[in-house]
């Protein structure tokens, strides 16, 4: 608390100065006057942009596959690629990433293969998650990318704890945690932010403010100056960035990571963007927002903006773009097709990983189930074969 005393009764009704938004890149790919581009090597820029293109293609093709019934569910990152990939690029591999669900761009940036994506989405025996969760709930221990969990905001206090443990470990790593402006209404958000601030956890909280939580617009989500205003309230260093401006996102995150790791304290980054697609393949946004609004945001497409910058820098050409897109389209579709043939996880996986080892109760339940399936093999086509001898 400050020692500032007043004798005049006045209620505060907002910030003395509203929180400003960092913006470096114009829509045409040139820098704003006075803006300073962050240090970003050609190699990193290409890797970011390449990831953007891959994610665009993946999203487009998977939505199609879902419509064809080849996939039960999908969620796109469309419109938020700069926020997600630009941020991930500012971190080191040893840093843990905890996502909400719309951040597969960060996972790709770290090296998750097209094949790995497909295994997860098709819930097969090669899915690292053993087919237990819905499509898009990726996770990879090797890549320090925590498995996605559907309950919203639970990862936020977890990220504080994870980072605190990293600090104890003393290996100069931090945790990057993503969440939406909707999830930021959950009690877990408050708990996690406040604990991180008080306990000085090297966590970078990255809010993707994309204007909607399913059908709920941000005006029905909060009444204050976005999520950034809360960071300030927690006594946390905070910055708001144009989420469609990859340079602004990257620059802010480089700085945020530095503060987190060097000062052992959390930082909040709020990236202002827009969810260009539906919430998920189960959703139809025409029921709650206008085409015009969408078009307004389509005009400030983050991928296009980066492309313009890359072309201006002569790091990229239209021809390269065309080839890349074609290759990715083919790769995604070929991989999908091939992966459809991979069998489901064995029945035994139903009871593993509940505990470190199945206890007697679970073993008994599995044994009864095997017997039952052997009696009704046609009713359990996914596992009947494995019960009938192919598996021990």
């Amino acid at each position, binding site marked *: 608390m400050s020692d500032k005393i007043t004798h005049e009764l006045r209620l505060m009704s907002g910030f003395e100065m509203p929180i400003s938004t960092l913006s470096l890149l114009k829509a045409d790919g040139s820098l704003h006057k006075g803006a300073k581009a962050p240090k970003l090597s050609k190699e990193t820029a290409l890797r970011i942009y390449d990831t953007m293109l891959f994610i665009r293609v993946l999203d487009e093709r998977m939505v199609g596959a879902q419509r064809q019934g080849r996939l039960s569910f999908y969620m796109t990152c469309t419109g938020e690629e700069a926020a997600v990939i630009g941020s991930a690029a500012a971190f080191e591999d040893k840093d843990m990433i905890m996502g909400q669900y719309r951040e597969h761009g960060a996972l790709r940036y770290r090296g998750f293969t097209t094949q790995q994506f497909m295994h997860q989405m098709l819930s097969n025996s090669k899915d690292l998650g053993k087919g237990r969760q819905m499509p898009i709930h990726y996770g990879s221990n090797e890549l320090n990318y925590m498995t996605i969990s559907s309950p919203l905001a639970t990862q936020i206090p977890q990220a504080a704890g994870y980072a605190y443990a990293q600090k104890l470990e003393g290996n100069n790593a931090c945790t990057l945690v993503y969440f939406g402006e909707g999830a930021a209404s959950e*009690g877990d958000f408050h708990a996690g932010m406040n604990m991180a601030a008080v306990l000085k956890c090297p966590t970078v909280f990255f809010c993707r403010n994309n204007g909607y939580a399913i059908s709920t617009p941000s005006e029905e989500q909060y009444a204050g100056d976005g999520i950034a205003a809360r960071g300030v309230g927690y006594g946390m260093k905070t910055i708001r960035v144009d989420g469609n401006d990859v340079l602004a996102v990257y620059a802010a995150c480089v700085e945020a990571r530095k503060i987190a790791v060097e000062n052992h304290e959390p930082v909040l980054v709020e990236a202002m963007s827009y969810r260009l697609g539906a919430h998920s393949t*189960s959703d139809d946004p025409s029921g709650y927002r206008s085409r015009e609004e969408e078009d307004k945001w389509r005009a400030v497409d983050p991928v296009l903006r980066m492309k313009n910058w890359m072309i201006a820098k002569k790091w990229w050409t239209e021809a390269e773009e065309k080839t890349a897109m074609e290759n990715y389209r083919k790769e995604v579709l070929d991989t999908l097709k091939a992966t459809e043939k991979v069998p489901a996880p064995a029945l035994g996986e139903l009871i593993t990983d509940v505990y470190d080892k199945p206890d007697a109760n679970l073993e008994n339940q599995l044994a009864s*189930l095997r017997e039952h399936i052997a009696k009704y093999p046609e009713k359990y086509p996914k596992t009947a074969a494995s019960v009938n001898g192919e598996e021990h």
Partner: protein
Amino acid sequence: MAKMNLLQAVNNALDLAMANDKRVVCFGEDIGKFGGVFRATSNLQDKYGRARCFNTPLTEQGIAGFAIGMAAQGHVPVAEMQFADYIFPAFDQIVNEAAKFRYRSGNQFNVAGLTIRTPYGGGIAGGLYHSQSPEAYFTQTPGLKVVVPSTPYQAKGLLLAAIRDPNPVIFFEPKRLYRAAVGEVPEDDFELPLGVAEVVKEGSDITLLAWGAQMEHLQAAAGMAEAEGISCEVIDLRTLLPWDVETVAKSVKKTGRLLITHEAPITGGFAGEIAATIQDHCFLYLESPIARVCGLDTPFPLVHEKEYMPDQYKIFEAIKNSIHY
């Protein structure tokens, strides 16, 4: 009478409740303009205005707390939890606050008007977090009523009763049946009593008990058993707390056998409570152990959903085991 699916029956009940009592207010995540992710609240905002049907910020603990406050004031909130899997952040507000509100205040205050609706259950390829059946987490809580309809008819009659019941009610809607279950439902206002089980079919060899979506599997299994000459008495529990011990005990005294089925994991599930109570009430009548056909003791697995579910074949086998014990 009109043909409605379960979702329409819920929507119709909400509509009538709001029309007949202006203290009735509906809210939850995405339930306003959009009408809810399942569309259970379609058109209600248009009809009754934003003040009485609105989106909330994304916070289940807030929704429950807010609803409790409204109910304490004398309003009749009908709050939606988008999925039963997401009711847990509201757990403290529900079990420590709503359930104990009247008792702790010596009846100075109550949350009579409170109803929390939430879609539950598997069979929709939802995996761990869009499939849970958490009813037993609430049946340990005196002060709450827990209701689960299994048909459009029940959905309407029980939901209207729940909204008007002078106690907090958790109303679990079987989402697998939202569109799949279609049936005749009276167009007028009507209520089905809470706390009363329904004997769906009389029989003499074994009593079969379930609630909600599981009734479908149970009835299919009963059909298989009847085809083999086993006469099944089928009971739909409808209200889990407080539950209708008398109807179940009476049936078991007649048939000498009981099978209970639910989707939730067997250990700690509500079938345990029923079995414990009935073995006490009907000890001298039981001809075989009370059978429980339930989910496995694992989280709800996406890819092995079929294997996990206590389906008609598992129930049928358990019926035969019980008969031939």
